[in-house]
């Protein structure tokens, strides 16, 4: 039998946009048993509410993510068009300022204004600007490096930010970045195309990536809902 007070609490928490894991943690802290919490999540009214919330959240997420992508594309198109006329300090300032604004606004919306989706989309935009910044700086100063290293640096920064703000879209961005670096490096190693074995930074960065991705996987694994533990 579902406890009506608990079911009501779960429903209200979901309506506030709290993640399921957080609700679990709170209730476990209040000495509720996992089975009872699970039942209250499965009560028909909560399920209905959850499904409705999910649809709304997906729509909002889709809209704001596309918004972030379009804004990013627009900003870079503008910068690219005026790139030649800008001096180096202006270029770097522009990259840093746009990244910081995006991250700060995202963090503020997510943490302070409780606008989770919009906040996450802005943080995602910040991560995209950060990555673009890596390549623009490399191009500006003619840095000698193997090109997949840029993607590794981008991936590492994105993972760090993802943990800092607990944002899953950033993890989703980090994964394809890692894949690009993984495909790029062996291509360079076997063909010798653009690969300079004297640049030991590549091997070092690859080693660091191995450790970081393993660590990230390990930490996220620990966040798996408690009711699934017996299946691992």
């Amino acid at each position, binding site marked *: 039998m579902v406890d009506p007070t608990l079911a009501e609490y779960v429903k209200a928490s979901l309506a506030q946009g709290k993640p399921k894991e957080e609700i679990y943690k709170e209730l476990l802290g209040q000495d509720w048993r996992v089975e009872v919490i699970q039942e209250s999540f499965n009560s028909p009214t909560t399920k209905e509410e959850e499904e409705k919330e999910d649809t709304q959240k997906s729509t909002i997420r889709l809209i704001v993510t596309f918004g972030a992508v379009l804004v990013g594309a627009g900003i870079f198109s503008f910068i690219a068009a005026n790139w030649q006329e800008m001096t180096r300090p202006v270029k770097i300032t522009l990259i840093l300022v746009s990244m910081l604004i995006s991250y700060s606004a995202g963090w503020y919306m997510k943490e302070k204004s409780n606008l989770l989706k919009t906040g996450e989309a802005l943080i995602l935009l910040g991560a995209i600007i950060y990555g673009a910044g890596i390549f623009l700086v490399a191009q500006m100063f003619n840095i000698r490096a193997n090109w997949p290293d840029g993607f590794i640096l981008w991936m590492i920064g994105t993972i760090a930010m993802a943990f800092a703000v607990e944002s899953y879209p950033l993890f989703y961005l980090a994964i394809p970045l890692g894949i690009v670096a993984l495909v790029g490096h062996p291509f360079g190693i076997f063909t010798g195309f653009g690969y300079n074995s004297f640049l030991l930074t590549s091997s070092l960065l690859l080693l660091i990536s191995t450790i970081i991705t393993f660590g990230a*996987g390990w930490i996220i*694994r620990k966040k798996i809902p408690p009711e699934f533990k017996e299946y691992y």
Partner: protein
Amino acid sequence: MLGDLLLIFLLGPIGIIIVIFRHMSGRKKSVNPKENKEWYLHLALSREDAVSQLFLLLSFFFLGVTLLALNRDFGDPLSWRTILFITSLVGLVGAYYLKTIYTLVFSLVGLTSWWVVQTNVWIDGKDIKKSTLFAGVAFLMLLFYSLGHLHEKEKKFKRFALVYLVLGIIAVTGVLFIFSTKPGIGVLGEMTKGASFVGSWQLTLSLLVFIASLVGTTLYAAAKKLLSPFELLAVFALTCLFGITALLPEQSMFVQAGLSYGFYSGGGELSSTGVLWALIYNFAIFFELLGLLFSGYIRRETWLINLGALFLFLLIVVKYFDWFFTFFDKSIFFISAGVLLFVVGWFMEKGRRYMITNIKKETQQIPQ
């Protein structure tokens, strides 16, 4: 110019992110094993599970590439095959320790690939028949099948079981499928040319280890009632078939020697030996697929029935092309193909529905 490049640079990863995002969104709703009896068919049970598995898979790949890069930096002291072996082995250990399905798949594929490329090095310059190599891979795949059933014993290894079973079934079906066609028979004939496998002690030892592991695992799984007598028989029948293929002396599959076995070009006419092998492999694939459907029905596994039905459908289509494309007039060929597909579709839909309904009924009757 720079603007276009930047847009491409932005849109590339965005496309991949959308694909990953969609995959992860599907995982947002956790699969609760207590509510969903087919929970083990999901590669990830929750969003956290999916993301952590992907990162662990990335770290496994990064390890391989790091070793490759360091190897290059230090003047290539190791071969890339050794690195593949080390990485796959580490991946396999990691997959078991952390229960990650994605890493398990790639580790198993990596180890199998390592054996194939390493064997090619072992037999290099010895003119040993390639059919032995094929038999080795087939033994490994049958071993995966038995290991899959062995993993079903424990709840936390049920998803591992699925990985082993699917890899084994797909590979064995694929091999039988290829050798049941005319070009496949030609390849089989080519593979039997050369000296016996005993010319390479490494290859001989590998095959002995594979056979011993396969027999041991299969008998153990059967003893633990994880494999039915009918499945045990099927595994041993296929082992014999692949074993005989490895031991075969040179076979001429076509009437005119050296004739190419081009696709549906009229090609060469099969010799009596070719016809015999074509018959053997066609029977083998047909009964293997029927066995798969039957096994799904006995085990009440709808995924096995669906997989068997899909393969059977593909087999019928390929066989039709293989046998009748040059034999019939083109218009008759296409009309009869259409009619055949309708009939096959009707039978399969009805048969599949009947089997699945029966399974559901029986499941409801059995108190859980």
